[in-house]
């Protein structure tokens, strides 16, 4: 025979799924939310996103090439995704140098020291965000007021987010319609509820993620805040406001579902989702921070190995 035959153990065919496909799938799912942020925050959103994505990709390339001495794998799209998610978690008037620090923290602390994609314990984008939130509390909590097709960047007019308004009582909130479309203050990717839900539907249809984590988180927050609201409606806002405000949707759909840092079994995913929901609500209602999504996700990320070792997939023939 002229050509040599290939020999390998079975199976001999592959489904054609790849890391790249999944990563770019998530990126596509994020497009609607990105468009919303462009619409309401204009130039600022564009600059923050571009800087964040470019710097994450650069840092990953440099670290892989010169520190880890191996072939860079930036084409798998994971660094782009980290950059985009980091940008989505930032206010659209954040100066470039702070974004660079955030990207360095995300890639250089959150991801590469563990061995790169697949080995990190915490969600890199959230590591970057929380790093900035703690280091630069002032800049990280002044949110530009939405202004259609704004040409302002760092000079944008700022205001409060829904959640920080909630800390002072349940008055003067934007209408539900505004919250659904994203016409409110906040980080650039978290405002457009409808756009985020479109992304969720896309990812569910393409089987990039399963429903377990988002549903568990959102359900838990709804139930928990619902109970608190029925106990004392004047202090605790109604669950719909909680659902639509802050980073809850962005976190539940895109951040908590990060493959690497979430549990592997279905039951584990539910436990993980409930954990995030409870922690978020506790921080929102009783903590000093207005928003607790990032902390909740990071805490549950850290617990993921533990969840994995206790919540096994349902075993065939088992109970």
């Amino acid at each position: 025979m002229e050509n040599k035959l290939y020999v390998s153990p079975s199976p001999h065919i592959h489904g054609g799924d790849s890391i790249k496909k999944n990563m770019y799938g998530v990126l596509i799912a994020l497009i609607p939310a990105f468009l919303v942020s462009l619409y309401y925050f204009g130039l600022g959103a564009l600059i923050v996103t571009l800087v964040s994505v470019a710097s994450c990709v650069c840092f990953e390339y440099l670290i892989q090439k010169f520190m880890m001495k191996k072939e860079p794998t930036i084409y798998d799209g994971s660094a782009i995704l980290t950059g985009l998610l980091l940008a989505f978690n930032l206010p659209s008037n954040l100066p470039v140098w702070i974004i660079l620090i955030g990207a360095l923290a995300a890639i250089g602390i959150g991801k590469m020291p563990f061995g790169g994609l697949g080995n990190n314990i915490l969600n890199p984008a959230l590591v970057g965000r929380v790093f900035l939130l703690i280091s630069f509390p002032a800049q990280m909590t002044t949110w530009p007021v939405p202004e259609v097709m704004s040409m302002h960047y760092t000079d944008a007019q700022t205001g409060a987010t829904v959640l920080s308004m909630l800390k002072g009582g349940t008055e003067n909130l934007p209408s539900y319609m505004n919250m659904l479309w994203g016409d409110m203050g906040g980080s650039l990717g978290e405002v457009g509820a409808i756009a985020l839900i479109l992304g969720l539907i896309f990812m569910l249809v393409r089987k990039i993620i399963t429903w377990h984590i988002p549903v568990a988180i959102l359900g838990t927050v709804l139930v928990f805040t619902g109970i608190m609201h029925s106990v004392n409606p004047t202090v605790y806002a109604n669950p719909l406001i909680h659902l639509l405000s802050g980073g809850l949707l962005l976190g539940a759909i895109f951040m908590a579902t990060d493959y690497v840092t979430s549990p592997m079994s279905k039951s584990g995913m539910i436990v993980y989702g409930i954990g995030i929901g409870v922690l978020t609500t506790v921080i929102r209602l009783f903590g000093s921070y207005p928003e607790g999504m990032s902390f909740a996700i990071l805490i549950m990320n850290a617990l993921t190995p533990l969840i994995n070792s206790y919540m096994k997939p349902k075993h065939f023939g088992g109970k």
Partner: protein
Amino acid sequence: MILIAAISLGVIGAISAAFLYAASKKFEVYEDPRIAEVQEALPAANCGGCGFPGCSGFANACVKADELDNLYCPVGGAEVMSEVAKILGKEVTTAEPMVAVVRCNGNCNARPRNNTYDGARTCAIASTLYGGETGCSYGCHGFGDCVSVCNFDAIHIHPETGLPEVIEDKCTACGACVKACPKNIIELRKKGPKSRRIFVSCINKDKGAVAKKACNNACIGCGKCVKECAFEAITLENNLAYIDYTKCRLCRKCVAVCPTGAIHELNFPPKKEPAAETKVKEETIQ
């Protein structure tokens, strides 16, 4: 204010200290101090070559054993063992220095590939699947399971031959590669005077014609070496010659008569004839 802080801190410290002390007393495990001493003397390679799990396991066994007869640290060799014996006040054991020997010389030229393996690249998995990329189902896969288990960086896959190559100075004869090789190609043999040794570098048990077809350098079981050997050191079984290193006197007559070059000699000074000289060079490469 300062006083309260100082006092409360002091009290907490005292309570913790008391607790820790109690716990350490309660859960203390008595250990023969000599175990630590012996362990100190060992090379700390934790290779398992002695048959115990790590150096501490070996140290423990040495202390407990009445005699050191069956205990030997292949890494440290006689030097370390005499030190261990000194610590324990026991008789020293001596063992001949051994070295790992790769018994396959089916390099890329001698043994053409007739298929390409595309599975997980470990020898263990490949050999549970099939005979290998060449016609010889006994030969080396070359995926380097022996390399990855070696703690001493003493074995490498030669890029040209595709076969493992032992670096004699680094090899401690711990036997990890022998266990790791799914084809049982690697053998521990006596290192020999001046590291000189002769061995059959093939383990193919197929009939001569079949073996030869698969690999030019295979032992074809012709038996010429058996006839040539004056010391009855060579046995022929299942179409395969084997040289007993305890009987071999390193006369090199078998090397000369082997028609396929399956018998290798290592570290001998070059013979006078120029032809033989090139041969030795070849051997050392392989």
